[in-house]
């Protein structure tokens, strides 16, 4: 009873507990790892788990090592916080940190933009979400925070049962999203490890705390689904963008990817251009039987992307501007790299990437674009209409060769459409306008329903009859028609510019675009001698037409019905504009209007933090209100001595002292008096005098024939004097714990009557 030095937690840790502490750290790590695995129902693939687990491991390991060698429990928590910040900075600072691990102000702003992105990303994605970088960032810091809290309650405050609360928060995340998403298996597994944790260090208060934790869990499980916003339900479907990676020819599964209603974030980019960039994966220019195929040259290994060859056909005298685009690929895989055409230089790529002569498409045999982050310099070719009109025809080109066995109706249709157009350019524009002019409708479903889904030559005739299809049909048909007119053509496969989310870097004119799986696209490129390959956009309601067409007065492009520039790809309603100069502000407005139903979901992050905070603050507040109630009763002289003694005992226990209910008043008084003697001064002496007074009072009122000759006010004052003395004699960590997480919480959880039995 009198060896209080041993129970003053926060003081030096005896070495004998070192192994038990390590075991506890290990158990906590396992429990958190399993609880995290339960998130698999809302997050796709597994990379996020390994990253999160590595953060948790770093936190627990740092805390354990610090505790072992610095011999103070609170040092462990400090170390855990420092290491958590360092690891997250290392993972996510993107080169902005000092020495990679020390965050700088630019790191912080980078982090805040990651936070914003993660909110957007959560709002945009449906479950299971793809763990893009920003979501990984969110996971990492949440797990780091959880691990720090678990470590602190279990190994600093020595109440491992309370580690169940943050653990529960993690396990419960899927049910926040939607109740049926929680995985019972991982819940049970986590619960089993939690029992091991509680069993590992059983203290008398533990069962009570466990009950309290259980109560919080039950109440939480009932309330949280009601309070939190619902999320987009997942649509059962294929494997999303993963399909890109399997095939060397990205056009094969394009239709299927477009029909998949899930908009999976594919990549994001910033560009110095005023317009969004068409990002091309590759171009298809060869026929292999009935199929368009990309040209793959075998001897391109010398063509490193540091300097990409000049765009074929581009002569001097054509206006060009250099545009810089930074691309961040999410979890899309492909051996082709999305780049604006024509690019001149790419930096920042991992692995061997080569550009192909002729097409300038960038590909790798071994590396994947997944997770890549790179900067592309590209040219924005801006030929004037007269230059285009002046381009001589080149019908002898290999790429103007009409595929063998082509239905003659296609050539006839082409001729009819172009009418009396003189130049190749005017013919191309005529074709483009014909497709976009309202005769054709965009649909991903019709081709599949009518049996011409695909990208071969055999789909052209049914498409012309049905006048409904998606980008592949428009691109293929326009390319083939152009060839029948003697214009060299090919099909580019890649991504639409996507939607502008916000302006990154005010005034810099650098716009951030998000590109998702529904932005997968195919478009025709036509060759004009002296200018090179020029992009056209025949698909109605998708992307925007090349800029020259909008600036030429008198050309057919001024048709006010021409649909253009729809950044929201899912919208089928054409918005008439005069060109691609949709301002960022407009785009933002549009985007927020579309995203409104989902923005509330972005608040999860904050709800997670708030929930954690509320759970952490609750015990301290409950204890405070109990204290206030008791002191009120003491003042009213309602068994004041008993109330005072109980409050004194609880105060001592909150401070980490061994004040048991099985101690008699005399024993407790001796013990506390010894403890007060560890400090000197007037406060300690006053406290001891008041303690003795209280002790005599409680003994004579409780055990003698009651005299009822007390003064509640005086007792309250004595109680305060003793409490103050005890507090000032306690080490700081104990005082903090007494405020935040009083050990007498168990009394509140169970009610005193049970303990008095």
């Amino acid at each position: 009873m009198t060896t209080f030095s041993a129970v003053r937690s926060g003081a030096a840790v005896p070495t004998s507990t070192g192994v038990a502490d390590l075991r506890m750290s290990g158990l906590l790590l396992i429990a958190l790892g399993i609880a995290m695995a339960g998130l698999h129902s809302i997050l796709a693939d597994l990379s996020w788990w390994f990253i999160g687990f590595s953060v948790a491991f770093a936190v627990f390991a740092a805390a354990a090592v610090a505790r072992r060698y610095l011999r103070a429990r609170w040092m462990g928590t400090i170390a855990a916080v420092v290491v958590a910040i360092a690891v997250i900075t290392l993972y996510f600072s993107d080169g902005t940190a000092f020495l990679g691990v020390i965050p700088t102000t630019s790191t912080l702003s980078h982090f805040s933009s990651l936070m914003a992105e993660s909110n957007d990303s959560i709002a945009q994605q449906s479950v299971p979400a793809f763990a893009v970088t920003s979501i990984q960032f969110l996971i990492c810091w949440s797990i780091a925070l959880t691990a720090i809290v678990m470590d602190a309650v279990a190994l600093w405050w020595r109440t491992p049962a309370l580690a169940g609360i943050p653990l529960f928060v993690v396990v419960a995340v899927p049910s926040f999203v939607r109740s049926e998403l929680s995985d019972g298996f991982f819940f049970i597994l986590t619960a089993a490890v939690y029992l091991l944790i509680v069993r590992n260090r059983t203290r008398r208060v533990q069962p009570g705390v466990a009950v309290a934790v259980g109560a919080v869990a039950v109440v939480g499980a009932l309330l949280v689904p009601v309070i939190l916003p619902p999320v987009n339900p997942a649509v059962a479907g294929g494997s999303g963008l993963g399909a890109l990676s399997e095939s060397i020819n990205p056009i094969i599964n394009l239709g299927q990817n477009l029909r998949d209603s899930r908009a999976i974030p594919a990549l994001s980019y910033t560009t110095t251009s005023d317009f969004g960039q068409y990002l091309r994966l590759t171009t298809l220019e060869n026929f292999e039987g009935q199929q368009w195929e990309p040209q793959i040259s075998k001897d391109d290994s010398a063509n490193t992307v540091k300097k990409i060859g000049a765009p074929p056909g581009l002569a001097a005298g054509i206006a060009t501007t250099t545009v810089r685009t930074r691309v961040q690929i999410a979890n899309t895989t492909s051996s082709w790299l999305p780049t604006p055409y024509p690019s001149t230089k790419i930096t920042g790529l991992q692995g061997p990437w080569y550009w192909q002569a002729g097409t300038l498409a960038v590909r790798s045999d071994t590396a994947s674009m997944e997770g890549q982050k790179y900067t592309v310099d590209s040219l924005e070719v801006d030929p004037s209409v007269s230059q285009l009109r002046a381009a001589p025809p080149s019908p002898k080109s290999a790429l103007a060769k009409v595929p063998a066995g082509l239905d003659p109706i296609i050539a006839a249709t082409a001729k009819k459409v172009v009418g009396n157009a003189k130049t190749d350019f005017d013919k191309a524009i005529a074709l483009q306008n014909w497709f976009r002019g309202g005769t054709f409708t965009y649909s991903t479903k019709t081709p599949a329903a009518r049996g011409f889904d695909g990208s071969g030559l055999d789909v052209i005739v049914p498409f012309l009859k049905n006048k409904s299809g998606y980008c592949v049909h428009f691109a293929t048909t326009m390319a083939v028609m152009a060839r029948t007119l003697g214009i060299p053509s090919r099909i580019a496969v890649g991504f639409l510019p996507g939607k502008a989310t916000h302006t990154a870097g005010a005034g810099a004119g650098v716009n951030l675009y998000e590109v998702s799986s529904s932005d997968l696209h195919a478009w025709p490129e036509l060759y004009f001698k002296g200018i090179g390959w020029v992009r056209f956009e025949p698909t109605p309601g998708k992307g925007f037409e090349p800029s020259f067409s909008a600036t030429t007065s008198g050309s057919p492009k001024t048709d006010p019905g021409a649909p253009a520039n729809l950044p929201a790809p899912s919208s089928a309603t054409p918005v008439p504009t005069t060109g691609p100069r949709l301002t960022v502000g407009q785009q933002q407005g549009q985007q927020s209007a579309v995203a409104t139903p989902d923005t509330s979901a972005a608040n999860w992050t904050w709800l997670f933090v708030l929930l954690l905070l509320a759970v952490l603050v609750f015990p301290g507040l409950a204890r405070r209100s109990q204290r206030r109630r008791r002191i009120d009763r003491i003042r009213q002289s309602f068994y004041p001595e008993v109330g005072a003694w109980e409050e004194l005992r609880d105060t001592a226990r909150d401070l980490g002292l061994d004040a048991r209910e099985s101690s008699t008043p005399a024993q407790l008084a001796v013990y506390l008096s010894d403890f007060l003697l560890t400090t000197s001064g007037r406060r300690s002496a006053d406290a001891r005098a008041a303690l003795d007074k209280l002790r005599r009072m409680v003994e004579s009122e409780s055990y003698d024939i009651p005299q009822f000759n007390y003064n509640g006010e005086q007792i309250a004052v004595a109680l305060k004097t003793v409490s103050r003395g005890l507090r000032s004699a306690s080490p700081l960590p104990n005082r903090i714990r007494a405020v935040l997480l009083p050990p007498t919480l168990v009394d509140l959880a169970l009610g005193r009557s049970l303990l008095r039995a």
Partner: protein
Amino acid sequence: MKSFPAKFEPGHAEVTLPVAAAMPIENFLNLSGKIIRTIETVIDGKNEAVRIALMVLLAEGHLLIEDVPGVGKTMLARALARSVDLSVSRIQFTPDLLPADITGVSVFNQSDREFEFKPGPVFANIVIGDEINRASPKTQSALLESMEERQVTVDGKTYLLAHPFTVVATQNPIEMEGTYALPEAQRDRFMARISMGYPDADSEIAMLRTRATSSPLDALTPVVGSTELASMIATARGVFASPAVEQYAVAIAQATRRDSDLRLGASPRATLQLVRAAKARAALDGREFVLPDDINALAVPVFGHRLIPAGRVGVTVGGYSGDTIADIITRIIAETHVPLGVRSGG
């Protein structure tokens, strides 16, 4: 150690104290202090044992002193008797001791031509039973029954024993051959069991010095008269035990009955005697009310010899179960909540 027939000491019979009134606690404290100081002139460094012995006397219980030979068990009993003006008798228990050797016999008086009762050594205020576990069970039970009933029946006639009546029995735990361990039912009749323990070095040196010349016991004179003693007993009995304290005593007793380490828990008589002893202890501290501290200080002496550990804890040899029982009781006390005030459930 042949001391048969039992040795009688003078003035052993027919000492009955008049019914006495309680005295002020200050006087009580003064007198009890005198007694303790007197005893301590013969027993060095055994304050706790002395106090418990006096406490048992004042609480009208019986005391079992259990220890190895030569640590002063008999000396304590005799010093206690000497310092108070009471009659003392001593019985050396041997295997051939008969019940009549304790209670007394009726002998035929030739002159009066009738049977005359010759009271045995049990007719004294303080009866010292040396090595009680050496006697046969029949003889043991003769003494133990008189302890509880405070009367002796011989040849159909009932004779009341002296008042106060305290048996101080000693037993030797280490000699096992030829001993009859007291059954638990009989151990239950002793209010408390203490063991003397060896004196510390200083006390042993002091003892050598004082014993060199003469037996210090001879120098003892009674410091408290029998009237005063009766008054002291009444005072001790009048100490207030609050409901909270009673609740605490019962909680401890009940915990011993539930405890998985114990095969036999404390009897209700044990609880009763615990509270009685606690009252005497409170009075010896100069208090007129019992504190929980009295209860838990006495739990080991009062409960220790009554509890039987479950098989795996300790080994019970001759009724001596060593420290393990004390450990169990200490643990039970550490787990029992001390009630405050009279509020229930609060």
